[in-house]
């Protein structure tokens, strides 16, 4: 309920009890950022050839920590924390039962994280976050990862319950845009994590416990990538939520179109999942036809991406012209460049242009052969998730954290935040460009430093690997800066009220048609597409399965 004080402030505040739950998730996310980022620094240093890890720590152990903490833990916790706050802000305070579910989910995830992390630190699970059966980790690692997924489902149920409650209380009304987006993202998450859950629970856990001797490797990889690509959209969609709903308010403008925003999210739901084969283009056992089909489905995400780009820049231009901008591009100068809440995510948006172009190359059937498993791919996803997504999350933290802690972002911190964004952009440009170039020359990803027996080609890669180390070191400075700001916002910033900005829809936009929120239609299409893309090839895989593989511990 809105109190008189909040009405006077002109905005609604997330209930303190919901805020506590959101903050708990944020704590874990930023701890993961620190440890995972430190591992990233160690990796680029090792890969430069000028540094070796002390105390018998393995490169692949560090790589596993980096991948799991940043790819799974930082992202999932930040996203759930953000979505809990977003739901509470736009659909109302959680009931005690819903909030309890949120806490149960949080603790289940956290127990899982600690269990998995322990096994990685004991060097019992250097299998990287993509699992790589028949490399076999300790069963506790797999159980830990399963708990992370199950915990996220429990949080998801709490979010769904809130949404259903809102819809029941407001029949015939489109739900608040941000709540709708949260629900789309969680629906996608629930559907796609089924794949990895089946892999872990029915294949890897029984196999690592010795209940079964063998594992079907191709099936395990297919189940993983059924989850592995939607995972990247699960990271991206919360960034899109900030762009669509929050940024227009920050710049003082309006949401260009509510209906197109919803349509774009529904298209992501449809075209995020039946596409995993584009990670398996060079693998045996899958017919080329099915690979190509999933390539086509993958490329369909270009359409919602075009919609999003248009909406963003339409919002920017309309606002700039409202402020009296002249000429074709005069509005660009009118944007609030001294506001970190805008500028930092904007750097992320800019990074998405080369990131998206690289992604199209990666998923392009035969073109994939040139870059598959080269460090080009690492360069690619450090632009997508580690720049576009992460800078948007940082930009969101600058209002979300003080909103939740009842503090304010000071001018100094705002300035530091902009510097942080620039440091990140510089470091990432160097590191990612080096990775892209040397990847085209053939340097592999997920590999320790090696001279490859003195091969001439590998010698040519070394200057780029040093450039990666320079870029990576600058990025680590960026991590120190963001953590400094986060600690300030959590514990030291002056007390005060900070807005959770929610944009309003432009008065020119029409009311959104209700079919956009008809879940029966969208979920039916979603499941039909998945069955279409996967049924035949998976049946072929199972019918023609070779003898399975026993487990190996090669690290």
């Amino acid at each position, binding site marked *: 309920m809105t109190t008189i004080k909040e009405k006077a402030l002109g905005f609604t505040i997330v209930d303190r009890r919901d805020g506590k739950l959101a903050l708990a998730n944020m704590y874990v996310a930023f701890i993961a950022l620190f440890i995972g980022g430190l591992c990233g620094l160690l990796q680029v240093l090792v890969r430069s050839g000028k540094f070796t890890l002390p105390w018998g720590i393995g490169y692949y152990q560090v790589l596993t920590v980096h991948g799991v903490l940043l790819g799974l833990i930082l992202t999932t916790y930040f996203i759930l924390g953000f979505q809990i706050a977003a739901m509470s802000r736009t659909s109302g305070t959680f009931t005690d039962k819903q909030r309890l579910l949120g806490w149960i989910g949080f603790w289940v995830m956290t127990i899982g994280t600690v269990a998995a992390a322990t096994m990685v630190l004991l060097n019992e699970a250097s299998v990287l976050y993509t699992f790589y059966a028949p490399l076999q980790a300790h069963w506790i690692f797999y159980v830990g990862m399963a708990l992370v997924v199950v915990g996220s489902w429990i949080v998801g149920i709490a979010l769904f319950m809130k949404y259903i409650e809102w819809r029941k209380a407001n029949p015939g009304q489109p739900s608040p845009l941000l709540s709708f987006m949260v629900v789309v993202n969680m629906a996608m998450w629930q559907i796609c994590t089924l794949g990895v859950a089946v892999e872990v629970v029915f294949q890897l856990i029984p196999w690592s416990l010795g209940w079964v001797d063998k594992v079907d490797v191709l099936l395990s990889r297919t189940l993983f990538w059924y989850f592995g690509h939607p995972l990247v959209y699960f990271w991206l969609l919360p960034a899109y939520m900030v762009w669509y709903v929050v940024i227009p308010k920050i710049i003082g403008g309006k949401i260009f179109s509510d209906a197109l925003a919803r349509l774009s999210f529904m298209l992501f739901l449809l075209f995020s999942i039946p596409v995993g084969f584009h990670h398996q283009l060079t693998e045996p056992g899958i017919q080329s036809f099915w690979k*190509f089909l999933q390539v086509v489905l993958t490329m369909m995400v270009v359409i919602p991406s075009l919609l999003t780009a248009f909406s963003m820049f339409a919002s920017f231009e309309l606002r700039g012209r409202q402020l009296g901008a002249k000429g074709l591009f005069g509005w660009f100068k009118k944007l609030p460049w001294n506001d970190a809440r805008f500028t930092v995510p904007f750097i992320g948006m800019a990074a998405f242009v080369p990131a998206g172009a690289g992604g199209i190359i990666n998923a392009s059937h035969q073109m994939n052969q040139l870059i598959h498993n080269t460090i080009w791919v690492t360069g690619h996803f450090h632009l997508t998730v580690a720049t576009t997504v992460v800078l948007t999350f940082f930009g969101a933290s600058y209002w979300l954290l003080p909103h939740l802690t009842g503090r304010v972002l000071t001018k100094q911190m705002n300035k530091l935040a902009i510097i942080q964004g620039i440091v990140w952009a510089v470091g990432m440009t160097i590191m990612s460009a080096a990775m892209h170039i040397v990847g085209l020359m053939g340097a592999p990803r997920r590999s320790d430093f090696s001279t490859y027996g003195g091969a001439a*080609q590998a010698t040519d890669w070394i200057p780029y690997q040093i450039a990666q180390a320079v870029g990576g070191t600058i990025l680590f400075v960026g991590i120190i800066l963001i953590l400094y700001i986060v600690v300030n916002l959590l514990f030291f910033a002056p007390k005060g009220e900070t807005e959770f900005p929610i944009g309003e829809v432009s008065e020119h936009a029409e009311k959104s048609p209700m079919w956009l929120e008809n879940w029966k239609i969208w979920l039916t299409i979603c499941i039909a597409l998945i069955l279409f893309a996967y049924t035949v090839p998976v049946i072929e895989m199972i019918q023609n399965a070779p003898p399975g593989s026993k487990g190996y511990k090669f690290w």
Partner: protein
Amino acid sequence: MHIHKYEKWWLTFGISSLVLFLVIVGFSAFHYGSHPPTGKVYIDPERVDEIAPFNNPGVHKVEGKEWDYEVVLVASAFFYNPPEIEVPLGSTVKFISTTKDVVHGFQVAGTNINMILEPGYVSEYVTTVDKAGEFLILCNEYCGVGHSSMTSMLKVVE
């Protein structure tokens, strides 16, 4: 649902480019047969050394096929057998490979010869070697602690 005029132009242009792009990729795949490597042959990963052609790894000249040479290569932690391959420039070569243990990669650096080797499957790729020189063959799929020391060398000679 109302869509702004400029947005219609933007989407029309974007989607048309996408369709054109996919038609080109598809035409190249299905008309010219330029598909990424695949393999439909199955093998018992624990008996690789006994099963032809993997009981005799190396370069074999063949007659009456669409390719001139078959390169048979066996991967295991952390070796390729053979450690060196030599083929004449301009010849058409079929690379045939599998793994005896975990998943390995088979990448010829600086070329588009790039396949995943999975236990139980035979990966194949046919290509014409049209660049002379020494090309590093390396493992690009994480396989354990010796992953980055796993190499072979493809020599394309005139």
